[in-house]
């Protein structure tokens, strides 16, 4: 596509040159295959869910009188709660970044 309005500035040529040259010298391009973050996030969600499920299972065992230490169960619940809060914070940050991008003037 030709950019007639800005052609006099020589922007098109400049852009082509940049595209041909690739990233500037000394810049490392980290290969980020699609879905790396979402895969990590899904994994973390699974881990948090596993913690919650385990806490619930030990709570159930405790309530059914199948032994177990009350303080261990409470600590498991606390750990599950903390990991869920961490997950919620990560989600908040990601959403903030997304909204920031969506607010960008184009």
């Amino acid at each position, binding site marked *: 596509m030709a950019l007639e309005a800005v052609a006099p500035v020589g922007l098109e040529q400049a852009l082509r040159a940049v595209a041909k040259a690739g990233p500037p010298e000394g810049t490392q391009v980290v290969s980020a295959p699609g879905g790396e973050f979402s895969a990590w996030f899904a994994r973390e969600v699974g881990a948090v869910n596993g913690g919650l499920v385990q806490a619930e299972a030990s709570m159930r065992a405790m309530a059914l009188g199948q032994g177990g230490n009350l303080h261990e169960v409470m*600590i498991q619940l606390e750990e599950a709660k903390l990991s869920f809060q961490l997950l919620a914070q990560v989600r908040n940050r990601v959403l903030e970044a997304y909204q920031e991008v969506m607010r960008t003037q184009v």
Partner: protein
Amino acid sequence: MDYAATFRISASGMALEKARLEIASVNIANMNSAGRSADSVFKPLKLVGQAVPFPFAGHFDHVRAGGVRMAGAVPVETAPRLVHEPGHPYANAQGMVAYPGVDHTAEMLNLNIALRAYEANVVALNAGRTMAARTLDIGGQNGA
């Protein structure tokens, strides 16, 4: 910093204090259990706690373990309490029955010590939990 490690340390303290309470309860429960002879009478137990080394040297990021563990419950050699009960099946030739030499006052004190130490461990754990929750406030909307 690994907050789960902090929780584990406090949990080990709680487990030990729970064991201390159980041992005091065992001693109190057996306060009046007669022994067949002065030698076979129940001996009051005493809990021995042992510190788990805290590997602190240099690697702040890899703080692991620490805490306390139960080294065992050892019987304390106390003189049995001899009571004159001639009709008792376990009475000896002099009509004396041996009862464990449980120190009632000391056991009541042990109960209180275990309770207070347990509470202190809970407070320490809650402090760690509050610290972790505050960490999650970093960069938050309502964090000052």
